[in-house]
């Protein structure tokens, strides 16, 4: 079959669109299909979440030319303070000790990331966006992938990329099983304004019910909160009148940012962990949440997804420069080997971290406190944690070093 594109990407969200841009850097032509009207996803009310972008991920966005649009919108994280509740003992990740002076990462409103990506996608000569639209049928055959659009057209390519989220229909149709469990926790996310400037510090306070994160946003007196509550308390917590809700937040923060008030209506997301048994199938590659999802405790979910995009960009750039069929089993196997190991190690560490902090009782708290102080005293371990937060551990794809593939 004569192909209309080099890849067909299902899902034009943060990971799907970044993947398209990362591939476009090597002249790889993608069709991006999304059921949503992408312009509508840019409206203020669509997604009130914020994301931590690790420094390595930021280098990738900059290499893709998104820095001009995004630079003024990201709040640098210079320090991460991890504490057991409001204990004075804390694990302190300080980005300023690094010779480069590079912050540990940046906090962005998802809306701003989406805006920059959608605009760059629309401007790229190598990306065609079909949205709102849907893949009515998808056929992955020996000679290539054929997608019939709900709107009537037919697209063909040697490779299909699933960026259709944690409940990926493509993954399911391919018969790829997932290991999944729920933490029986719900993340309540919201935005607060506070009296005392955050000073570019991210706080992660661990409580038996789950972590409570305060993440610095622009301007300096605004922060995103990720408040983990047990599943059964979620509805009641969200239903609290604003004053009572703020009082609950205040209780957990202990007033270290002064008086606070809500800047946006909070919303909630169930927390779970899932991992696909494999990231590839015939002429198919999974990226982002379709492949793996984890607890947002360490702010690694989106970063891990974007690392998929970066690794895939290297794998496909090499394949296209050698004239290989992009859906060749060897090409897919290289992606599987690269990403399978990296995401398993990040996800495993994150899961252990969450479980450790979720154990109630004094002995566990003592172990955590000693553990935190211990990590702090051991420079190599601390460096690993910091590199992980920055997203610089493992075998780095070119884009995460700030280079084009």
């Amino acid at each position, binding site marked *: *079959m004569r*192909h209309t594109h080099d890849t067909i990407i299902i899902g034009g969200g943060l990971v799907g669109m970044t993947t398209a841009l990362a591939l476009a850097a090597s*002249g790889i032509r993608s069709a991006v299909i999304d059921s949503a009207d992408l312009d509508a996803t840019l409206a203020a009310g669509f997604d009130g979440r914020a994301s931590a972008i690790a420094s390595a991920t930021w280098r990738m966005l900059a290499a893709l030319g998104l820095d001009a649009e995004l630079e003024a919108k990201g709040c640098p994280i210079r320090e991460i303070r991890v504490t057991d509740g409001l204990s004075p003992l804390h694990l302190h990740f300080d980005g300023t000790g690094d010779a480069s002076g590079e912050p540990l990462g940046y906090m962005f409103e998802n809306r701003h990331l989406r805006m920059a990506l959608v605009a760059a996608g629309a401007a790229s000569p190598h990306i065609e966006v079909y949205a709102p639209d849907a893949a009515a049928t998808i056929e992955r055959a020996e000679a290539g992938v054929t997608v019939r659009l709900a709107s009537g057209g037919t697209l063909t390519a040697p490779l299909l990329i699933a960026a259709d989220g944690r409940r990926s229909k493509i993954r399911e149709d391919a018969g790829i099983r997932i290991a999944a469990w729920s933490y029986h926790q719900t993340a309540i996310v919201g935005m607060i304004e506070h009296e005392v400037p955050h000073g570019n510090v991210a706080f992660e306070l661990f409580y038996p019910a789950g972590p409570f994160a305060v993440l610095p946003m622009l301007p300096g007196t605004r922060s995103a909160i990720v408040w983990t509550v047990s599943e059964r308390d979620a509805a009641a917590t969200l239903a609290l009148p604003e004053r009572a809700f703020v009082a609950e937040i205040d209780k957990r923060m202990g007033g270290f940012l002064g008086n606070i008030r809500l800047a946006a209506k909070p919303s909630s997301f169930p927390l779970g962990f899932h991992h696909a048994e494999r990231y590839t199938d015939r002429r198919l590659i999974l990226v982002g949440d379709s492949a793996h999802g984890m607890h947002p405790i360490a702010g690694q979910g989106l970063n891990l997804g974007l690392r998929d995009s970066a690794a895939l960009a290297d794998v496909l750039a090499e394949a296209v420069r*050698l*004239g*290989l069929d992009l859906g060749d*089993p060897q090409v897919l196997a290289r992606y599987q080997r690269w990403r399978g190991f990296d995401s398993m190690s990040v996800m495993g560490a994150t899961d252990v971290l969450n479980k450790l902090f979720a154990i109630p009782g004094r002995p566990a708290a003592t172990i955590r406190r000693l553990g935190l102080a211990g990590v702090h005293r051991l420079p190599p371990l601390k460096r690993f944690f910091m590199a992980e937060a920055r997203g610089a551990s493992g075998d780095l794809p070119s884009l995460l070093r700030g280079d*084009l593939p």
Partner: protein
Amino acid sequence: MTTTTIDPAQARLFDSIAHEWWNAHGSSAPLHKVNPVRLAFVREQALAHFRRDSRDRAWLAGLDVLDIGCGGGILAEPLARLGGRVTAIDAAAEAIAVAKAHAAESSLEIDYRQSSVEALAEEGRRFDLITCMEVVEHVADVPVFLRGIASLLKPAGLLVFSTPNRTALSYGTLIVGAEWVLRFIPRGTHDWNKFLTPEELTTALESAGLKVTETRGIGFRPSRGFELSDDRRINYIGAAVHA
């Protein structure tokens, strides 16, 4: 009737395994695995020789390319995707039929022919890039074959060749290991006595008016697969231009 360097017995052997060419998991698995390594060498040499941009995905655009001993088209198809105007020849009729069918399925335009170097040369065809992977060890008359290649290569053209070395290690690896023990390659594919050492091949190419500009080894490590290396004892790949 033109003279030919094709060995009829060898051509029949390849005919019988033609349907296996595109099965990436069958007896052609090593061929699929070594292909990116060969292509990487072709790319490295061609980018320098034709002064192409390393970020360009169509680095063979505008060039006339000939693949000698194309089999099912495992190398010819990438060469066509890279923008080359590809002619590909093989002595085995069945392989050419498989190659044509596969290229049609992939919508690639490749001029496949059951033909010989000598016949093409007689037609007066000339090419910018000629690839000749694992062929010279199968031909009946090496000097005639290489003179044929030289006459097909444009004055500023580039030849890339690969072939097994004739060493104790290559005997152990290719004949005993790959053909007899692992059955990676069908038995009788190779005649070790016909293998050429890099020095012998360099001398033979010189006699045909071609100058070898580079040779590298193709090694295999269980942990990493095939890779370009400095070890030429089993298999080597090289580039040559008109002297």
